């Protein structure tokens, strides 16, 4: 029987916690992802909000935008929560928990931009939220198909067995694409240059890491 750490994607075993059926584990791959998440959570905790400069056209004048402190505090909280949800998605050894954490990343992504009063940004966040909500259908559907065909949701148990149908893997990837599509919507609203600059970083970061983890899961199971 092939174990998780015999597979090429994972690398060496760093840690595994035999906790019944579901085994949370760190290979070199997931351990590195988790370490990155912790670094970015620390960045979200300690960085100060950016004070933006607007340049008045046709002259040398520029002025600083107002930074609304309670809104920024909410954004920072949501950025930290987003980091925590991403960390959960990196660490978990259970496919359904991974999908739950992916949905939580989607919710906190909405939360990070929600404090912005800009109508265009809110509109983009709303549209993203609808896409992310629709993505729960393939996401949970994929997990449910895996459970129905194999009787287990544990990555550790399913590793290398090759019993998971391709359709379930495709649905899982499709679902994560829906949840992780946030940067496209937020890029559309140009919030990178809007207020809250250090915290919107977490949206891009969580989306990237969700993709990296789902690739690992799909290759392993």
């Amino acid at each position, binding site marked *: 029987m092939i174990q998780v750490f015999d597979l090429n994607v994972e690398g060496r075993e760093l840690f595994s916690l035999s906790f019944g059926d579901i085994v949370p584990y760190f290979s070199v791959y997931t351990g590195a992802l988790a370490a990155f998440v912790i670094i970015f959570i620390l960045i979200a905790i300690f960085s100060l909000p950016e004070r933006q400069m607007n340049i008045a056209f046709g002259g040398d004048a520029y002025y600083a935008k107002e930074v609304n402190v309670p809104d920024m505090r909410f954004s920072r909280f949501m950025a930290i929560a987003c980091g925590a949800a991403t960390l959960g998605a990196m660490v978990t050894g259970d496919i359904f928990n991974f999908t739950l954490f992916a949905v939580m990343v989607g*919710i906190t992504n909405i939360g990070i931009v929600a404090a912005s009063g800009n109508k265009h940004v809110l509109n983009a966040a*709303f549209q993203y*939220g609808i896409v992310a909500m629709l993505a729960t259908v393939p996401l949970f559907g994929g997990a449910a198909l895996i459970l129905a065909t194999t009787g287990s949701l544990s990555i550790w148990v399913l590793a290398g067995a090759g019993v998971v149908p391709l359709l379930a893997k495709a649905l899982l990837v499709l679902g994560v694409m829906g949840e992780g599509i946030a940067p496209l919507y937020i890029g559309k609203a140009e919030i990178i240059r809007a207020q809250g600059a250090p915290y919107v970083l977490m949206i891009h970061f969580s989306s990237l890491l969700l993709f990296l983890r789902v690739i690992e899961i799909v290759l392993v199971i």
Partner: protein
Amino acid sequence: MITPFHIGLFAVSLCILVTFLSFLKEKDDLHKLILTDLAAIMALFIIALVGTDLAEALILPGLVVGISKLMALAEIYLVKEGIQQKKNSTVLDIEVLDTAPAILAAILVIYGIILSGFSGGAVAGLGIIFYLAFKKHDEKFELIETVSGYAWVTWIAAFFIFLIFPSQWFLAVMLAGGGILLKVMAKFSLIGTMRGDPGV
């Protein structure tokens, strides 16, 4: 071989198709918001189809994240359309807290009286906390103080009965149980009046 699972999967696939088609047709944001709930329910359908104990355990977290996402989206919609009401009267400003407290408090108080004793007082007190925290509570302090005083007297009387007429122990137990019920309830209910108002 066709199992009930396959038939169910086929039916759910049809439902999902209908849901996604309705998204293609719909242009209004509010209607889209309502349809997202339909999509979330479809996700739960697929999980429910598996029909094992594990699947049953997965439905509740799936439902919770779906609802929380729907609430976040609804809040975004309100802000986006500029139709949120600006009143910050209580910490938890939710519509259901205007209507529910009376019913829930009544249920909790009645259940607490049935339980009686310390735990009954705690349950009934929770009911009154809930009521006072979300309704007006002016001029109810005197009532609570009076009830609390009588409860203390009942309790002491019950102790005297224990000591002087041990044969009447059942009456004493009932009196003490009722007294401590009222006492704990009164103490608990004061928590419900703490709303950070000046002078309270």
